[in-house]
Each structure stands twice: as structure tokens, then as C-alpha cells.
């Protein structure tokens, strides 16, 4: 029987109503992992600050790597475990360092994650958050060279995956904290991990460190961020079993090519991302399931880009559609055609 490979996309920093907050895409991933033989998705979906959920048939793939994979430049090589190194932004204060060092030891001794070292950047990274004219979040790193040099030192010492903890400007975005805005740090988080993955071609993910925890009763969708002063545990859990990235010319038959993707599941109004477009431009593209219930700040539907899509109202309906595909069920309508 053919394995069912599903790519779940919920882009970060675009205000996705489901998955745009604090790990609130995890229930969707759990749902789809229940029917897919292999689910591929990205840290924005699976990270919930202190919370995460182990899914043995799910591949945790950083966004830049996901785009390269979808372009068939890279393949994915599943592993049993990775040796994880952690980069600390020199801007972290003493309390933040202690919280994150405790998180590392907790991951090592409580979960058995192989975190072997940490390394502090030689200067503060200068993380800045911004909002674009369309309302999506983005940001920049003032000292990208310092980030990459710290990551290089960890790789030279044996790291197979890199977690990055940076000091981020205070998260005072009231709409986001109320569970109805755009994650202000999502855009710069993507830039940080993309830089490391582009430079070193190994799994990476980012955990922000804020100056003060959320004090008030949190909105439900962001409640995971109020549980403690570190968001590192979910990143360490994800990286511990993240697949490696292999150039297509070095791939083995056991590695996973994006050509194996049967179905992409995406918010219906957010279909303009690089990875999705690369796959849909293939001669035999996967099925695109466009989910209406997960609205974002954008209005880039499949039809506006000339993409053929199967529209579904909800993730539950998407799951039913996947079950039907996997079982080979076709729901007939009308009478069978007669060919003369």
C-alpha cells in the first residue's frame, strides 16, 4: 500500500487563527498525524513554549529547509536522535541565562534529550521586530555574523542541531496577547533560524527570551506562553529528533523527497509561500487542501495564483478527506458515464 505523506503548513507571523499563537497548531498536527503515515510540518506548528507533543510519524522541519526541500534541492533524512547545541544571545540577562540553563538540564535529565553544549555569542545579536504594510510580522538581526560564528563553534564541537535563544523586545502587543493579533516575534524568529539553516544546513529553531513573563490572565490561545520564562523546552524536544537535510545529489533511497508529498494542507487565504508554490509548480503536483476556517491577514487564495485546490471548511473535514484518500474511497454522484 502506498504511504500517505502530508505536508501541513501554517506560516508564522501572518495572524493564522489556528496555529498563529502559542502552539495552538499542535491539535491540528495531532489530528492529521492520526491519518498520515508521514506528516511533515514546521516548528511554528509544533512549538508550544513549555508544551509539545511527541508524534513519532511527524518530521519537524525548519522553514528555510522546508522551502529547499519543496524545491527538491534538499531531502530529509530521519534520525533516531540529534546532539543539540544551544546558542545564547549575549544580550540575555543573568536571570534569563539561569532559566535557560535550567531548561537545558531539565530536557537532558527529564526527557533524555542529548543537549551537549551551549555557546554565547560574542556580542548582543540586536533582535528587532517589525510589522509590514500588510500587517504580517518580520524582523532582523543586527549582528548575523555573531550568530553564525557561535553556531559554527557548536557544530565544530559536534552539534547536529542548533537551538537559538535570543533576547527579544518586550512582547507588549495587546492584540496578540488577547488572542486576536499577529505574533510580533514570528517574523524575526523565522529570519534567525533561516540564517543558521542556510549557513550550516542542519536543523535549527529559535526560542525567544522576554524580559518579563505575561502577568495577567492569558487569552487561551497564548496561554502556553504564560507558563514560564523560557520557551526552550519545545524547541529542544523538536530538534532532538528533527531530520537532517541532505543535498539531493547525496540522497539515499531511504531519505524523503518532497516528490513523495501526496497532500498539502494550508490555510485557504495564505497560499503564496515559497514551499507551497514550489511543490504546486511540479509537473504532477500534490493535492492542495485549502482550509477555510484558518483565516490569516492575507487574501492569497489558490485561485488568485492559478492553483488547483480542494476546498474544505475545517481541519476535521480535511482529515476526513485524507481518510477517504488513504482508503481509496470515492463518493459517487449521479449515474456512471457510458462511453460510446
Amino acid at each position, binding site marked *: 500500500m502506498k504511504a500517505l505523506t502530508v505536508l501541513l503548513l501554517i506560516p508564522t507571523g*501572518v495572524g493564522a487563527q489556528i496555529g498563529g499563537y502559542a502552539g495552538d497548531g499542535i491539535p491540528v498536527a495531532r489530528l492529521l498525524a492520526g491519518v498520515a503515515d508521514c506528516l511533515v510540518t514546521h516548528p511554528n506548528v509544533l512549538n508550544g513554549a513549555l508544551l509539545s507533543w511527541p508524534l513519532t510519524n511527524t518530521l519537524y522541519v525548519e522553514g528555510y529547509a522546508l522551502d529547499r526541500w519543496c524545491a527538491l534541492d534538499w531531502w530529509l533524512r530521519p534520525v533516531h536522535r540529534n546532539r543539540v547545541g544551544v546558542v545564547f544571545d549575549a544580550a540575555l540577562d543573568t536571570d534569563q541565562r539561569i532559566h535557560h540553563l535550567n531548561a537545558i538540564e531539565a530536557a537532558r535529565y527529564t526527557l533524555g534529550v542529548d543537549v551537549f553544549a551551549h555557546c554565547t555569542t560574542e556580542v548582543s545579536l540586536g533582535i528587532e521586530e517589525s510589522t*509590514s504594510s*500588510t500587517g504580517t510580522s518580520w524582523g*532582523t538581526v543586527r549582528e*548575523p*555574523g555573531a550568530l553564525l560564528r557561535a553556531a559554527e563553534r557548536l557544530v565544530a564541537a559536534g552539534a547536529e542541531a542548533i537551538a537559538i535563544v535570543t533576547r527579544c523586545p518586550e512582547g507588549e502587543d495587546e492584540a496578540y496577547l488577547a488572542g486576536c493579533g499577529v505574533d510580533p516575534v514570528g517574523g524575526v524568529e523565522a529570519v534567525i533560524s*533561516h540564517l543558521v539553516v542556510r549557513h550550516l544546513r542542519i536543523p535549527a529553531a529559535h526560542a525567544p527570551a522576554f524580559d518579563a513573563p505575561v502577568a495577567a490572565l492569558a487569552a487561551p490561545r497564548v496561554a502556553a506562553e504564560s507558563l514560564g520564562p523560557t520557551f526552550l523546552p519545545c524547541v529542544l524536544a523538536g530538534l532532538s529528533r528533527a531530520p537532517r537535510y541532505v543535498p539531493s545529489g547525496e540522497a539515499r533511497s531511504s531519505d524523503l523527497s518532497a516528490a513523495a508529498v501526496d497532500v498539502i494542507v494550508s490555510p485557504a487565504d495564505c497560499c*503564496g509561500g515559497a514551499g507551497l508554490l514550489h511543490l504546486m*509548480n511540479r509537473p504532477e503536483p500534490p493535492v492542495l487542501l485549502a482550509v477555510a476556517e484558518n483565516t490569516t491577514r492575507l487574501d*492569497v487564495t489558490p485561485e488568485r495564483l492559478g492553483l488547483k485546490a480542494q476546498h474544505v471548511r475545517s481541519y476535521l473535514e480535511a482529515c476526513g478527506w485524507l481518510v477517504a484518500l488513504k482508503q481509496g474511497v470515492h463518493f459517487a454522484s449521479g449515474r456512471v458515464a457510458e462511453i460510446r
Partner: protein
Amino acid sequence: MCVHYIEAEIVPNTEQDLCTQVEQALAVHGEPLRWAIVEAGSLGEPVRIEAAVLAS
């Protein structure tokens, strides 16, 4: 080395690969780290792109 935020607009040629057209438009600004089409009208109309690019 620095990371820039870029907004660009292209009129896609429906006969050509859209990703290639976007990446060619962004290449003049640097190497794209992340890009997405954030506004699109009907087919054949301009599309707007937001991107983070790495420049020397």
C-alpha cells in the same frame, strides 16, 4: 552581511514558473531567506511579495 526586508511587485507570466519569476525579482536585492506572495489579484494581474533577503 545584513538582513533586509523587501517589498516587490511583479506581473507574473502565466507561461513560466512563478517561483523562478519571484526569485529572479528578489535576486537584485540579495539572497532570499524567506519570501511569500502577500497580495494577488486575478490571474495575470500584479502580485506583491514580501521577503527577507541576505545582502553583503
